[in-house]
């Protein structure tokens, strides 16, 4: 199998005043298509930063990321956006649903962006899949946190991404809800054969993935 995500020599540093702090220091790893991986590590170790770089939300200071054989460094912002639309799904810690859109419309956005027609049925199906078939015309403010995260999952899978990034998807939820969300995530992942990258603090969750990447102070420790 070929690697869908290849990270080599990735370094990210921020300038704060005259000082330069290196948040990620020479990170390299590969991830094969269809596998799952979790990134763990203490707060401030650079997990979110790494995820952002892998998903093409940010640019590296040094080193390269290639996603599905495309080298991200060389793409323009708009090309990166296209790439995300075509191949990447994203789940956020704080859900990031668009407050002015209904649940259904939120799920449809990635497909509508690329001009696909007749997608409402598919989007409704996805919502049913996450157990919200009867809530599709509700706005995010009318949903609970767990429900919002389920809509976010449906949205993340809507464009049938090759790879899905999730940054502490259950960080804001209680234990019980967390478990059901996690279960859902893994189920759909299996169904669609999506590659999964999860940032988490939860050891139990981490051990469910094929591989664990442990960060500390911007370096891989195991």
């Amino acid at each position, binding site marked *: 199998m*070929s690697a869908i995500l290849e990270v080599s020599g990735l370094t990210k540093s921020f300038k704060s005043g005259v000082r330069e702090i290196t948040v990620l220091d020479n990170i390299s790893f590969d991830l094969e298509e269809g596998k799952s991986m979790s990134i763990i590590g203490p707060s401030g170790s650079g997990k*979110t930063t790494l*995820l*952002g770089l892998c*998903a093409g*939300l*940010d640019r590296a200071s040094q080193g390269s990321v*290639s996603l599905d*054989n*495309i*080298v991200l460094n*060389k*793409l323009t*912002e*708009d*090309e990166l*956006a*296209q*790439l*995300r*639309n*075509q191949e*990447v799904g*994203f789940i*956020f*810690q*704080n859900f*990031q*649903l*668009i*407050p*002015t*859109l209904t649940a259904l*419309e939120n799920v449809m*956005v*990635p497909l*509508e*962006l*690329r*001009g696909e027609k007749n997608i409402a049925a598919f989007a409704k199906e996805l919502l049913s899949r996450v157990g919200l078939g009867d809530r599709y015309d509700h*706005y995010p*403010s*009318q949903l609970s946190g767990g429900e919002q995260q389920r809509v976010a999952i449906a*949205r993340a899978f809507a*464009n049938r991404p090759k790879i899905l990034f999730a*940054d502490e998807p259950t960080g804001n939820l209680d234990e019980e809800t967390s478990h059901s969300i996690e279960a859902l995530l893994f189920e759909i992942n299996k169904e669609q054969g999506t590659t999964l990258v999860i940032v988490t603090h939860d050891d139990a969750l981490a051990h469910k993935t094929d591989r664990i990447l442990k960060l500390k102070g911007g370096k891989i420790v195991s």
Partner: protein
Amino acid sequence: MDKRTSIQPTKYSLTWPLKMAWRDSRKSKGKLMLFILSISLGIAAMVGITSFRENLLLEIDDQAKTLLGADVEVKGNQPLPDSLLFAFYELAPEMSREVYFASMVYFPSTDGTRLAQVRALSGKYPYYGEIETVPEEASREFQNGMSALVDEKLMIQYNVELGDSVKVGQQTFKIIGRLQKIPGQTDIGATAAPVVYIPYNKLDQTDLLQKGSRVNYLNYFQFSADVDTTGKWSNLVEFADKKGYSIDDIEERKEDTGRAFRDLTNFLELVAFTALLLGCIGVASSMYVYTKEKIGIVATLRCLGMKSGQAISIFLIQVGIFGFIGSAIGALVGVGLHVYLPILVREFIPVELEPSFSWLAVLSGIAIGVVVSVLFALISLVSLRKVSPLQAIRSDIGNGKVRIDKVQVLVGGIIFLFLLTLVYLQIGDWADAAVFTVGLLLTILILGLIGRGLALLIKRVMPDSIPYVWRQGLSNLYRPHNQTSLLVTTLGLGTAFIGTLLFMQDLLVDRVSITGENDRPNTVLFDIQTPQKEELKQLTLDYDLPVLQEVPIVTMRLEEINGITKREALADTTVNIRDWVYDREYRVTYRDSLIDSEKITEGLWNGNYESGDSIFISISSGFAESLELEIGDEMLFNVQGALVKTYIGSFREIDWRRVQTNFLVLFPEGVLERAPQFHVLITRIKNNELSARYQQAVVRSYPNVSIIDLELILKTLEDILGKIAFVIRFMAFFSIGTGVIMLISSIVLSRFQRMRENVLLRTLGASSTKLWKIIIAEYFFLGGLGALSGLLIATILTTLLGKFVFEFVFIPNIIQMIWVTLAVTSMTVLIGLMNSRDVIRQSPLEVLRKEI
């Protein structure tokens, strides 16, 4: 393994931003509408006034001939000499004559007397338009007998009926028609100087044409169809012009009338423009906050693969659509306004106005509205390009700050040019347009800075010791997401506008309110012949009235200043003397001493002339200043044929607000005694009944004497000023209305922020009374500060206007200022409270869930 460096392009949906724009606006329709509504009133005023102006110019064009009533009017203070008359006659054989002058008229049936404009007419004038009378045929028949036409309002005022008589000078005429309208006359004109028509051939019988009285001789000509108005005619005109006759043709009359109204419409359009600009700033600032709110959504959409340009399109589409709706509403109101405006100013205009719908005005109004809302929104919206998808996972990045970049500067430049062009289109002069636009923008900037400065100042100096609610309310002024600058700007500009209008009105009304006090003179007798002087004095004393002043008046013209004649002044561009200086008639008096309304400011005054000396005269300092004259300059006067050489001996400052006969030029005694002259007598009459009896007595014995009743003039003037003030106030409403809409929308904008804080405070146990107090404190300071900065600007503006335009000193009226401050502040607090209602009434959870 091979690496790809490019990806397959996605076919982005073109309609998606449209769909997204609609969906996104569902929850903020009200808000967007409110932002955009702030331009509606400006657009309304613009459309209304532009249509009105177009309408007016069109009508003036259409009715140009009836404005003059003839093809050419020749006017002078001497009858046209026969040689000239025949020359004109040859080219335009159809001619009418008119002589007009001011004289007392007397209505024997009701014993009323009134100063009127007497017009003696012969011929078929007017050739275009009509002298409108009731009955209709009276306007043609009055020339055939001892008949007169009398201004309708005058007849009503003096309770005179058709068939009654009117005495003009020594002759009594039968009133056979009520005069309703004469060519070119406005209602205001008719009120100020009511007209009485008498036949030309009966003029002599009135015995009113004596030397000294101011008489105008007019000849109206109608061209025959085949006349050539270029060669011979224009030579003739030039010749008559040189002889001191003024010649008016239709084209010129049209231009004069148009010019007179251009000032009015320019003023109205600038008011409209200010309202519009105020609205634009409202749009810009609302969009600034709106854009900040949308950053989160944009970041998420970017994560999902939206291109950066699409982000701008979504919100630009919203603004465009709501801008269209707002402008369309504005245009609709504008159409209503343009129907109402002619009614509002009916009395000022000499033409009949049928409001006609102007598509051009409506469409350009809507177009301007859409363009300005898009442009002003774009300032903030372009920053959405820069929103990084990273902001979705890390909300602190960029901290929601909208940074200024090159594109914003570009948009700013485009806006400036657009505004400049808009103003230019209204006033037609680039320099003036630039001054106005830059001035207005500077004012806005200054107000914004005052707001920001205040916020910083409060932060610095607020003592901890003041009560908690006040501290909380005040600190709302500088904490993040505050609207202090914006609100101070809007409130300030609105207040500045209203303040300036109020102050100006005060200034102008104050200037004419001179007869308030009891011992002031209020009656002036004019045109007294020298032999009548003593008798009239006696008559006045017989009525127990004081003779407050008695002055001789000699009329003269200026031939040369320092040896420069009018022709030389016109030919030589380095000479800075305007032609009115030569054209005007100087009414001069002579005295041996100064009176108490004048004061020598420079030079020496000697009231006695010894024959053989040079003649030293004294002129008013204002007149000297405008002509740049100096002590010792030579002035050559033509005193009804005799040339008199004089030198400027002194400048006098004259208090024109005192009722005296004041003169630009004062001669010493011993020069003009034998020149043809008439006299003026000033007295004071305490009650109307006595005034009427006295006036009747004077008119019966001395029909040539004109009586000016200052009370009457003042009433008329106040009436006119009142009407003007109403027009101005009506227009000011648009700015104030815009200000109120902006106030509401900026409060609505900052509401969510406030709600969170208040909910927090409430959760922490603050009582609602406390919350109300905090809100009151905040808006009290905002309103008060806005009002005070606005008043400051109004004061500066009025002072400048007073100094440079109206030439008098503006003394601010403190009481009025306090009222304005109170009104603006309480309005701000009221709107603030109304908008905060649900913040306090609803449960915290409800609030947090509802508002997004």
